[in-house]
């Protein structure tokens, strides 16, 4: 495992997502209201590009005919066959315990700390004035 600096926090505002390749792996990073999550951009079903999917809400109901929308922006639907995944946990909706999108831990670090290393800056220059998204792969 190694830590990679992938973007400045300001480059990925809340509600946005960014696809990048780290150690040869396609990884999608999401900003959900200031919290960052990294998912392998390969659906555990048949490998669809998760990051290209529709970001939506959790649709639930307690009785027939009811539709309740919660957690807007936190569920992604695979563009291939529509399976839903929880961006926060990687869990699938259909079988949360058995089927999960692979997650990568993310932390936010200050530029002042990063310049000391041992982080690997992919393609972005690091400056001491900014905070950065660091992903462990």
């Amino acid at each position, binding site marked *: 495992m190694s830590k990679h600096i992938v973007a400045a926090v300001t480059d990925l505002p809340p509600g946005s997502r960014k696809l990048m390749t780290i150690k040869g792996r396609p990884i999608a990073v999401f900003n959900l209201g200031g919290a960052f999550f990294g998912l392998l951009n390969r659906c555990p079903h048949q490998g669809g590009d998760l990051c290209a999917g529709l970001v939506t809400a959790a649709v*639930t109901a307690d009785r*027939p005919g009811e539709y309740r929308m919660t957690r807007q922006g936190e569920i992604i639907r695979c563009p291939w066959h*529509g399976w839903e995944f929880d961006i926060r946990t990687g869990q699938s909706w259909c079988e949360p315990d058995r089927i999960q999108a692979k997650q990568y831990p993310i932390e936010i670090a200050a530029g002042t700390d990063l310049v000391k290393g041992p982080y690997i800056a992919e393609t972005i220059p690091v400056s001491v004035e900014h905070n950065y998204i660091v992903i462990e792969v």
Partner: protein
Amino acid sequence: MKVDCDIHPGVPSVKVLLPYMDQYWADAFVQRGMDGFDMASYPPGAPISCRPDWRLERAKPGTSLAQVQAQALDAFGVRFAICNPLYGGQVAVSETMAAALCSAVNDWIAAEWLDADPRLRASIVVPVQNPQLAAEEIERKAGDRRFVQVLLPSGAEMLYGKSYYWPIFAAAEKHGLPVGIHAGLMYRHAPTSNGWPSFFLHDYVAGSQVFEDQLLSMVSEGLFVKFPGLRIVLLESGVTWLPGFIWRAIKTWRGVRAEVPWVKRSPAAYIREHVRLTMQPFDAPADAGIVSQILEEIGSDEMLLFATDFPHWQFEGDQAVPPGFSPSLLRKIMVDNPLATYPRLQESIA
């Protein structure tokens, strides 16, 4: 303690029902000269409607109590057999005539069959054409604990998951009665989803698709969410279409489940919990290996119920169960599963 979950006593003619009708209907059938309310799905002369060695001379299939006692009850050594009459009231176009025929059949079967043999139990037949009247008929007969189920034909005017039918399921759930759905159509729609077939062969074989449609309707409309205590028994469905159907239902649900968010678990989970199936016919070759593979794919040993489907012609001799069932599984389908499915059977032996 073996239970036969599907036998068919026949109504010989509307004449035997007249004493169980009110004055208006007792007169109306005579004045209009109407009889022969056998269901078009089971023409009395069709091979499926009666096994050759179970045919009666000059009488319709299943119309003799003595014959049912000898050839269905004694021959298979059953402790209980559930009578599922298939008669025109269940499919008539007129709601009120349907109600009159159904209530007469229920009273007739109680008086002339259930009273005559303590091994017999019956389903309440109802005018599904009018769910309110059907629910009232369930209320009227539910007090007689020898009625252990509510019976519906497999094809009606609409799909059974629709809220239009909920009064029937509410009444059944309230009284702890499973709802049996038996092969047989109202013929308000073609028996295939793409039009009318030309031959009986097609009509009967296509029957399993109607069960698939009803099952999907009940799952997707949320019937089992609305009525968590409800049990559905598919009678004479053929059974072995189930594994592929379940697989397809799960696969599709995973992709579009947000359309039906009340379906919280996979369709397979609802089906395994709420649905039971009788074992005649069991559409598979007489090959133990294939049968055990099908059972594994169905994924539950609680779902199957022993039945002969008497007098329908599904098997020869006494081979009512195909090979490939272990002794412990046989016990489940003949005893444990029926008693668990029909609480009223359990209570009468307690």
